[in-house]
């Protein structure tokens, strides 16, 4: 008799589990229809987070989820329909444009900010400037000692982002001119990790968005004319276009989804939204 009672209790428990799981599932679906999903570039993560905080203050009913992972992760998610807005720090490749074309409906590409790419080294490093050619040679593996740049006789430790990063692709296209990275470079998973690692190693060199630069690292001046003049990596120089490693940061979404995406994107493009972009260390669009 006792066992029968136990079975009964067990069965009731099982049933109630199923019940509660069901209701939980329903709740999820309900909130999902309102939730705006944003995914992609780690570079854009920092200011987008602040934009969302401010946006939610004004629209307490809205629900937004934000995930990083890299520009390619965001674009792949948008193609597969797993996100509403993809943040990307590089343009779409022809392959990706084709995939959106096959899906139909068209996409909207909004530039929400501009970003300068800083080349950073440890403050203890004697080298202050670098030419574009040297930078290319470092990352393609032709130069690997600091004395090639009038520095100490130490081997460089060359830091890069992961291949999912838009910064990785941008750097490959525009600084390496499409050539492959050397396979010996160290790949780290975020801007923050590169800054941290460079601040700890006297022989490291890395590239990060200007918005992530802090006092623990030194930004190298860059020569775009083969060593005649050097331009400091500063926001002002990016603004007046003398510092040429400048790239647009996009929000991309599908046109038939714009009703859902527009309110937030418009907020980011508004004056108060652009102010947040500026305080985060990026350059506003207008």
């Amino acid at each position, binding site marked *: 008799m006792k066992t029968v009672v136990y079975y009964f209790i067990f069965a009731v428990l099982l049933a109630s589990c199923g019940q509660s799981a069901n209701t939980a599932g329903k709740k999820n679906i309900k909130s999902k229809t309102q939730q705006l999903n944003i995914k992609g570039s780690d570079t854009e993560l920092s200011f987008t987070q602040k934009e969302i905080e401010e946006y939610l203050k004004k629209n307490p009913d809205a629900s937004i989820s934000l995930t990083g992972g890299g520009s390619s992760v965001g674009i792949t998610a948008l193609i597969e329909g797993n996100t509403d807005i993809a943040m990307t720090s590089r343009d779409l*490749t022809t392959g990706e444009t084709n995939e959106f074309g096959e899906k139909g409906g068209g996409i909207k590409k909004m530039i929400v900010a501009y970003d300068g790419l800083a080349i950073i080294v440890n403050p203890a490093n004697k080298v202050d400037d670098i030419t574009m050619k040297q930078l290319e040679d470092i990352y393609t593996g032709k130069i690997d000692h600091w004395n090639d740049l009038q520095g100490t006789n130490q081997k460089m430790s060359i830091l890069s982002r992961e291949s999912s990063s838009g910064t990785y692709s941008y750097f490959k296209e525009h600084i390496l001119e499409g050539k492959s990275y050397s396979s010996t470079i160290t790949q780290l998973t975020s801007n923050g990790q590169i800054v941290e690692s460079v601040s700890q190693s006297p022989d490291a060199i890395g590239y990060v968005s200007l918005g992530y630069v802090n006092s623990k690292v030194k930004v190298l001046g860059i020569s775009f004319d083969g060593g005649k003049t050097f331009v400091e990596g500063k926001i002002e120089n990016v603004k007046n276009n003398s510092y040429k490693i400048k790239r647009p940061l996009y929000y991309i979404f599908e046109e038939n989804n714009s009703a859902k995406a527009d309110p937030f994107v418009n907020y980011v493009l508004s004056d108060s939204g652009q102010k947040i972009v500026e305080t985060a260390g990026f350059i506003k669009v207008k």
Partner: protein
Amino acid sequence: MRRLRKIIEKIVEGVLAMSAAITSITVLLIIIFLFDEGLSIFSKKPVDDDTVIAVNSSNPVSKLTGLQIKDIFDQKITNWKQIGGKNDSIKLFRLDEAGTTFTEQQMGSNFERLAICVDSYVVRTPGVLLYFSSKYIPKDFHGKRIEIANITPYSFLMGKQWFPTAQPVAQLGVLPLILGTLWVTLGAILFALPFGLATAIFMAEIANHKVRNYLKPVVELLAGIPSVVYGFFGLIVIVPAVQKIFNLPVGESGLAGSIVLGIMALPTIITISEDALRTTPRALKEASLALGASHWQTIRRVIVPYASSGITAAIILGIGRAIGETMAVLMVTGNAAVIPHSYFEPLRTIPATIAAELGEAAYGGLHFKALFALGCILFIMTFIINLIFEFIAKKKKY
């Protein structure tokens, strides 16, 4: 009443059998899915479907390996002579260059005449290497298309370059990743084995009850810490420490990965070898002591040899734990896809590669399949480890 009870028992037995069946089927399905996705990479070419790579029809070169094409686009190969052609420099021609080569008038405002422009360009440029989308290649194309070899198991397993997103030809060589995984696992075991074994012997034989009762939960607690926490700990504490102590240019290295993985494998090694040590029959121990052997001699000559198969099993399970670890190694090993030569350089493991790249790989694409093939390799590795474990655990002697 009795009949009711019998029926209920039958139902419960049925439910249990069902759960077992569902579990086995799920496992089988996962394995089938894994190998189905992973093995399909071997029938593919390492380029996008609509990529066309072509040369002038007078060019004697008709086949290029993926590596040669990469070297050409990296401008390491600049003359056709280097790859068995005529003495003529290679002129790359990509879609991006169309805008600077042809005027808008020539191409047409919607690129409707681009295909004709491309065709005539290839015909009049003997040294051209064309990389274009098939959309802009005319039907009566006068150039010669270059054959690109399919991915073979040999080129996949023995290839030394891992550039899955390289354009136009993806480089899918997993040898550095396999060796990186094995290398960091070996380091982890070399690090964890002395510590683990020493702790196990201490807990089983030397420590008194009080210490042991305190130590055991602590070790088990170690197993419950999420791996991302280990990774974070490694990044903040071990990476800078390794960098300082060994005076390395950068602390993210195989050594840092080995230490973190070693710590993660410790609980497995300690608990299993301690259990093995404890199963030594009392009679054996007492016989040894009665013969005049000291406590330490008994441990060294009787208890450890008796438990050796259990200890081996512990090591192998520890390897199993370390080999598949993802988050922690991703954060501390530096992820450079090179064949490791020392513990002081960054390396890249299979699980870290899958974790870092799966998000960006388009569903069903080449990169996606390559990552699944990596998953297959990892599965085979852990499967072999488990087989060895079974074999050793069964071989219990005495």
